[in-house]
């Protein structure tokens, strides 16, 4: 679960204005439904098309590419082979309580894989694991084992409560070791390893944290 920079540049001006207000009020009352695609695709742009938690590939770059914004509005060109719904993500409210107060709060929104969202449901994530925090880094809290391809709490953390807390997040909330995700990650890393060994060029477009850990490939 790597760090995410929540860049607001391409967000619609009406939405940005609302975000900039000190006393925003309840966003649910503000109807931003008509800007849903703008918000979702901006999130994908910040997350590079992967699930904010598991880093599984859930949205093709063609959907959130720069060409899809015309005069500040997200419009997917007709000639593209993709439609606006060709992604596997759902809008996650990091803090479920905040959803009730400010539904459209940009800081609280992430795109995550639909299956992971149904597992997370309304469970809150520990605040220090928010991927867009200034001082967040996956290395502080997680380590990756390239034999079992599992994330574990950082073994340098002495506080056993904190270790249990992170482990609970890995298993029950963020689904970092979800069976299918883990298997896909292992397959992906092995594929990259093979390419690297054969001297073939490759692009890393998912599972960034684990790839960096195992292959030392920064993206």
């Amino acid at each position: 679960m790597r760090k995410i920079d929540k860049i607001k540049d391409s967000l619609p001006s009406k939405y940005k204005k609302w975000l900039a207000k000190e006393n925003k009020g309840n966003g649910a009352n503000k109807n931003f439904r008509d800007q849903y695609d703008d918000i979702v695709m901006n999130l994908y742009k910040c997350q590079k098309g992967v699930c904010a938690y598991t880093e599984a590939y859930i949205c093709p770059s063609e959907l959130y590419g720069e060409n899809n914004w015309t005069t500040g509005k997200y419009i997917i060109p007709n000639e593209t082979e993709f439609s606006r719904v060709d992604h596997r993500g759902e809008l996650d409210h990091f803090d479920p309580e905040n959803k009730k107060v400010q539904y459209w709060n940009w800081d609280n929104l992430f795109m995550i894989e639909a299956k992971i969202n149904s597992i997370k449901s309304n469970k809150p994530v520990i605040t220090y694991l928010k991927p867009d925090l200034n001082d967040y880094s996956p290395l502080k809290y997680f380590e990756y084992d390239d034999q079992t391809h599992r994330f574990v709490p950082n073994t340098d953390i002495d506080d056993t409560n904190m270790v249990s807390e992170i482990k609970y997040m890995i298993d029950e909330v963020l689904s970092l070791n979800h069976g299918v995700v883990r298997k896909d990650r292992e397959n992906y890393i092995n594929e990259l390893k093979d390419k690297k060994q054969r001297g073939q060029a490759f692009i890393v477009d998912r599972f960034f944290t684990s790839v960096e850990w195992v292959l030392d490939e920064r993206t």
Partner: protein
Amino acid sequence: MKITKIHLKDFHQFKDLTIDLTYPKGHEKEGQPLDKVCFIGQSGTGKTSLIELIPKFLYFYDTQLIVKSGVKSIIDKIIMSIEFGKENEYSAQLYFSVSESEGTKSTKRCWATRKKREELTDSTPIYTYYTETWQKEFASKLIYLPANLNFDIEVEGESKMGKNGIIDFSKDKVSFVWNLILEQIQSYQEQELQIRQEILRTVEQASNDLTTIERALSKLKEWKKTEFNPIQDIADNCLNRLLAPFKLRVKTELDIKSKDDIGFIKIEDYAGNEIPNGLWSTGTKQVVLSAMPLYLLKPKHTVILFDEPERSLYPDLQRFIIDFYSSLAEDCQFFYSTHSPIIASNFEPWEIVELKFNEDGYVYRELYYEGENHVDNYKYNPRYMRWDDILQRIFDMENDGSPLRKEKLDELATYNVKYKKLEKQKKAETEEAKTILQKVQKLTKELSAWEN
């Protein structure tokens, strides 16, 4: 006769659900109805309900579901589209609505029929053709094998098999189908008995004339070679293959003097010891009682409904029974409902209908393709997948083993990380590192034989 689409407007947990039952684009049977369909999904998603709705629409037959829900529950709520005819030249939409005539209300099945899309046909003659000609002369009766098959293997008793429009084994004993070949068996046995008696007479009358005795014996041999033996047939072409994993086979040499002696089919072990019917295992009963009706009824141009075909079957049998059942029917459409990943692995991805609950508690179909419904756009193909992959990706099992296995894997991952850290710090020779390595090796041994 095959179903091409089921649309449920509003029925129990179904709301505005359309289930397309045709082959996708790019398939050699593109647009044609599926030969077999497999409903999967969590208990309560309505797999059995879908199966039990079919006889009502196709044959006006009330299954338990209709009896319990009442006919009112389906009026104007469900439409089934079908194709029928020798070359599937007719198509129809079947639904129930209330017609009011002369002040009385009645429920009737309504039809909107098309011979071909461009050639509109009056519905009445098609309806008559369907009920009077197609169902009575060409197609055999719909067969329903429920999950809780009646394992009673007594062939005595009154059978209503097929008299109410379909062959419903939720109401009839499966063993009744045995009666279909009882007379054939009796006739075969009587002829054999006759020839054997002739041989005995020959031996008595010409005990020293070996040539005459040999001629009499070869007559029996010749007769056996040419005469159709119904028991041998069911043994060779149906049951022995299914009984082989149990080291059992059909007993073909019977010592019977009358029809009453025949009873139900006899099973023996490979040493020739008969296994009394009362001592058959549940698995033996299941394979015999599920396969035999299809073999003896020889269904054609109809629909066969099979709820939980995996019941009491060891995985090795589940691997091939679906193809085997298909081989016993001619131009039929099978509907299965299952919880077994092994049964699911027998299906092409478009033949699987996975039912899931949405957040509002209504059921939707999980699609396995993205974009256009084309064979190239399907993400899974259960026939190529490993069992564990089917369990994880199709049956949504989150982990690849028990909770204890997961715990141990987490433990191993943690020790691996710790050991590698010590290695990096050039502390691999310390006592701490050695202890960790021992734990890694022990856990790896326990877990690695089964992969990660």
